[in-house]
């Protein structure tokens, strides 16, 4: 993270900042962000496996209709 960004964000943490600490009160990069910016983070739609079932909703065109 660039120095200017750290300076800019310091004001957000002004009341709890302590320059002797390495992490507390300092902006830090998210741990999962590398996957996000490269598009490699897995999401639910990445999963495709053998025997995967698909469903589709069929909704009743009538209230309180009887299924026959």
């Amino acid at each position, binding site marked *: 993270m660039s120095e200017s960004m750290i300076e800019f964000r310091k004001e957000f943490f002004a009341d709890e900042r302590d320059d002797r600490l390495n992490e507390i009160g300092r902006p830090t990069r998210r741990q999962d962000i590398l996957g996000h*910016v*490269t*598009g490699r983070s897995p999401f639910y739609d990445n999963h495709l496996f053998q025997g995967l079932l698909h469903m589709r909703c069929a909704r009743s065109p009538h209230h309180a209709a009887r299924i026959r």
Partner: protein
Amino acid sequence: MPRKPVTFTLNGAAQAAFTEDGQNLLDLLRRGVGDLTPKYGCGQGGCGACTVLIDGEPHLSCLVLAETVEGRRIETAAGLAGASLHSLQEAFMDHFAAQCGYCTPGMRMAAKALLDRNPRPSRAEVVEAISGNLCRCTGYEPIIEAILSVAEGGGRR
């Protein structure tokens, strides 16, 4: 179902695949080719998560018929990082411009198209460029800041 061969360039490499009848480009990329970086969001062209570049122009791949990309040049987020990260990716990391990360690949492709076309965009032009991409967690401000920081000289404000 009839299958049709289609050949195109994906991130600089020649690619050949079969398209199903009526298959969209997003499905071809994700299921057919295995490039999972474009995301399936709404499937209706509303969210921009599936944005890819076709011949340098941003397109919503869920609305592009796969067989129409014959011979064209497609870029996805997978091609953005070479040996090192693209400057846009560094900027997104530095500016907290991703939270869940689902909109991020689409955002970045839209941003890349803008910066390729106009290396010094104004803030309004950045907003216009990503207006087709929805983000539901980070908010747009960090994303706009990230893109402006990559623009030459920090961009015109």
